[in-house]
């Protein structure tokens, strides 16, 4: 474990993230221009979708059925475990619990990308269809948590608006859309653009993106004083529990060590892009500071620095 942790800690991805956090803590005026940040995010998601689609075209559909079903089941469980812990252990109210559970039922695309890159770096690249699994994990996760909240709070009239928000969010459109484009692209035509989407440019962009993610996460650290110790413990414990659950699911689904690591990291992650607007619209009385601080200031840094190597360890124990 120590050696794997060291590999991760000394990777430019992790170090750039830490630099971003430090830049924020010393109140540096540095931050990536908003449009550059958004553009890099779009590039990374679309590149992963494209590569996933190209790989999927090489695989047979039969291979993906079992992992898809298991991931869908995992997606249904995660919001329920989160909600139960928040309500029972944390004693939080219905709206706040459901709001945070929606974040932990969803997936952080950046954690996913970092885990994909880590698995590739360990010479155990994940299966090509992983972006499909992300979509399957994320969608039921948000929907279930919001439904719990809406039911307990006496019904919401905005189901259509929220589902539109979730399904047309940039993560799903770029990943799933990219997969479709990659899947049907002629191999010779893909080969012409592949150097832009695969390889050095992709990895370099990821480092730059993580630098800004550090700034974004660092901005949230101040809110920790306000949100309290339970949320810190929750953000870490939930990541480890969901990571273990995801690793077990990956092993049962027959994924390799890389794929299992990535599924575990996805399962351990919490959204801060797709979930917040959906939660804000459905559960307006849930405090967004709680959910955003937990997912951005605690779970995300934990996963990037310690979590991904830990899930790799889980995966190498569980996968035969």
């Amino acid at each position: 474990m120590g050696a794997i942790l060291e590999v991760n800690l000394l990777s430019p991805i992790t170090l750039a993230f830490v630099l971003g956090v430090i830049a924020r803590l010393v109140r540096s005026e540095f931050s990536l221009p908003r449009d550059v940040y958004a553009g890099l995010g779009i590039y990374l998601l679309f590149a992963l979708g494209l590569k996933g689609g190209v790989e999927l075209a090489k695989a047979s559909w039969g291979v993906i059925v079992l992992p898809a079903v298991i991931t869908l089941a995992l997606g249904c469980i995660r919001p329920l475990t989160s909600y139960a812990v928040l309500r029972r252990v944390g004693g939080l109210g219905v709206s706040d619990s459901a709001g945070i559970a929606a974040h932990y039922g969803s997936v952080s695309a950046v954690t996913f990308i970092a885990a994909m890159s880590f698995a590739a770096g360990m010479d155990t690249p994940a299966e090509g269809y992983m972006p499909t699994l992300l979509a399957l994990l994320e969608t039921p996760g948000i929907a279930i948590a919001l439904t719990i909240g809406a039911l307990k709070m006496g019904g919401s009239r905005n189901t259509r608006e929220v589902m539109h928000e979730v399904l047309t969010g940039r993560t799903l459109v770029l990943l799933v859309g990219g997969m479709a484009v990659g899947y049907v692209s002629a191999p010779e035509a893909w080969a012409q653009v592949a150097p832009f989407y695969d390889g050095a440019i992709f990895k370099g962009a990821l480092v730059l993106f993580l630098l800004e993610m550090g700034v974004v996460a660092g901005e949230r650290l101040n809110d920790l004083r306000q949100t309290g110790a339970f949320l810190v413990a929750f953000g870490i414990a939930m990541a480890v529990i969901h990571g273990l659950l995801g690793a077990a699911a990956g092993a049962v689904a027959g994924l390799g060590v890389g794929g299992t690591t990535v599924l575990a990291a996805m399962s351990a992650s919490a959204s801060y892009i797709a979930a917040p607007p959906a939660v804000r619209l459905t559960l307006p009385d849930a405090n967004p500071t709680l959910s955003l601080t937990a997912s951005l200031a605690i779970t995300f840094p934990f996963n990037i620095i310690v979590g991904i190597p830990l899930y790799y360890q889980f995966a190498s124990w569980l996968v035969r």
Partner: protein
Amino acid sequence: MEPAVLTRLRLVTIVGETVLRERLTRQLLEWGATGYTVTPSSGKGSRGIRTGDVPGEGLRIEAVVDSSTAERILSGIAGLYFEHFSVIAWVSEVQVVRGDKYVRP
């Protein structure tokens, strides 16, 4: 050159959370506005709530309307959003050229 004919109308300004963009602009038209302008904005208020992927990002919506529409918009917004969302709204008096452009026939 003829002097411009000015009409007294109301400028409704709403400052709020970005997630409300679709809802607010749809409702403005339903309440009788003939158009609106949306600009990104940032700042801090009593709630200090920052939401969405870009913390601190908000929006400012402006519409020139007649006074009864302005009242309808303000009371609608007060009823729907003031309790749970970071939204503020105000009305100011403005003088515009081509006044009929802003009023539904």
